[in-house]
């Protein structure tokens, strides 16, 4: 059985000013896959995610979601595709002036002509799905970090998007809440067939949810493949990552230590 490709990245390069953040990244994500993008802090994971949803303009390469090229946010085709995409931001990005209910109903109000009664029902259902039944009338500032994260997930899921991007969903959460969020992602994939792209460096999360991983190292795609294959590696940055070892530092530090030892002892 061949799965259809939902997201395709080709030769993507992104720069911040003159600094290269991503170089020549190519990957494809198929339907119902849970792909985890991982790597050390600052390796370009969030940048890749932002570029994939059109928030960052690449200097080279292309991104296609649902077979449509992602361009500027003013491009009507891009806007249409984005309606099929949910994004959970690292810091939730809930609109601070709106209640949780209004935040979650926003995409429905903007993109559908559903009656208000139905919108309210959908919002309640989504809140129940993320176990936040009583939080509807509250403002985001009145919720804890974990609750905000779940509210943001409810908003990302409110249009039942076939593709969901999550930027560090379990960062800053206690292990129980984080595991609950992971279970929710797996349930969503199993029940609705959603394709999920998760950026994280939480080992527990990766182990419990990942089908395939894309390991970024210094802005380049260092390894891509099934999670089980990644665990079989016995050396290099991927192995170091999974065994919680610091990668070998650049040589000049060793040289400096040698210099002190040679000079003074």
């Amino acid at each position, binding site marked *: 059985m061949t799965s259809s490709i939902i997201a395709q990245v080709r030769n993507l390069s992104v720069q911040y000013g003159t600094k290269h953040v991503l170089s020549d990244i190519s990957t494809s994500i198929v339907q119902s896959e849970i792909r985890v993008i991982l790597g050390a802090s600052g390796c370009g994971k969030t940048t890749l995610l*932002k570029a994939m*949803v*059109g*928030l960052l303009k690449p200097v080279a390469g292309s991104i296609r979601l649902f077979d449509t090229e992602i361009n500027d*946010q*003013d491009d009507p085709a891009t*806007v*249409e595709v*984005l*309606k099929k*995409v949910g*994004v959970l*931001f*690292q*810091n939730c*990005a*809930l*609109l*601070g*002036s709106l209640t949780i209910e*209004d935040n979650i109903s*926003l*995409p429905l*109000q*903007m*993109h559908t002509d559903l009656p208000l009664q139905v919108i309210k029902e959908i919002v309640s259902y989504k809140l129940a799905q993320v176990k936040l039944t009583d939080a509807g009338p509250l403002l985001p500032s009145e919720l804890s970090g974990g609750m905000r994260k779940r509210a943001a997930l409810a908003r990302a899921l409110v249009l039942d998007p076939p593709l969901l991007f999550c930027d560090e969903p379990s960062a800053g959460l206690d292990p129980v809440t984080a595991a609950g969020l992971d279970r929710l992602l797996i349930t969503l994939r199993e029940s609705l067939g959603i394709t999920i792209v998760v950026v994280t460096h939480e080992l527990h999360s990766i182990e419990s949810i990942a089908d395939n991983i894309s390991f970024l190292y210094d802005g380049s795609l260092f390894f891509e493949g099934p999670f089980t294959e990644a665990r079989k590696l016995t050396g290099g940055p991927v192995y170091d990552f999974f065994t919680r070892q610091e990668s070998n*530092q650049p040589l*000049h*530090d060793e040289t*400096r*230590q*040698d*210099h*002190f*030892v040679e000079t*003074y*002892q």
Partner: protein
Amino acid sequence: MAFQEKTISLPSALDREWVEKTFGPLEGFNGGDLILDFSQTMRIDSAALCAIRILDKMYKDRGRKLVLRNIAASFLSTLGAAPEPAPAVSKEDFSFHGPLIRAGDRLIAAKETIVHALSVLVEMIYWGTLGILKKQDFRRGILGEQMFQLGYKALGIVALLSFLIGMVLALQAAIQLKTFGAGVFLGPLIGITMVREMGPLLTAIILAGRTGSATTAEIGTMGVGEELDALKTMGINPIQFVVVPKFWAISLTMPVLSICGTVAGIIGGWCIGIFYLDLSSSLYWGQLWQYLFFRDVVAGFIKSVIFSWLIIWIGAFYGFRVRGGAEGVGRETTASVVACIFIIIIADALFSFVI
């Protein structure tokens, strides 16, 4: 002449206090090699570690040697393993081409600022007018909410300040008019001044401080909190969602506020006319209606509408420029108010020649 080497016996705790006391003299030591004896040393902190590294480099540059005698292997490895700090690279180019490059950079930055400002203006006008037919990215009831916030809540301050300015203007004018026995012209003087100039200008300045700054701060905070990015990924246009309701709200409420301010100012002038110049009320209003023409009212109205667009445009432009967290929000909000008042006064001066 051979330099004399110097040996220093280090204390048991090589810490910040030791660095504070000793670094200066050691740095200034102009003799031969420096020997630091670690035999007593039991503890070393970051300040001491960095100081020794600096001394090592400094002595090497002078062609001397820093000798670490009796140093424990653990201290030596700590000294050696600490990462080399990144060299401080000056971005300033002081060569012959430096000023040219800097001028070029500023020119490019200015061009980018103008392009960005114009793109915000065009998008605001497009999504506020023709774009609404295509797509309506704003919430139900938001226009009324914004009109209440931007208009109704500013009414009190606009009316009060305009009343006071009307009184002050009338008082200053009355002193001169009384000298020439021309007190009867107070009504037209205050009326025309308030209708054509002070009413719209004063309202605009108050709203620049109130609405312009609020717009910048709101958009800036949304940008910092990734809320604008969230809107984009939901397929919602941030300009239409955030700016367009404010654009319409201020366009509709500013002329009304301007009229209220103008009326308050004229009433302020009337108070001075009645109580200072002993004018009759009918004379004040009669003279005012005689010399105030419809074109003056139209001029004031056009000004107030244009000023409202300037306020929201500049407020939004600075809001989208915000970078770097809370400090960035504060910086751009201040800049927005200053720019807003500056441009409004320039626009007012230009209008005075045109209409």
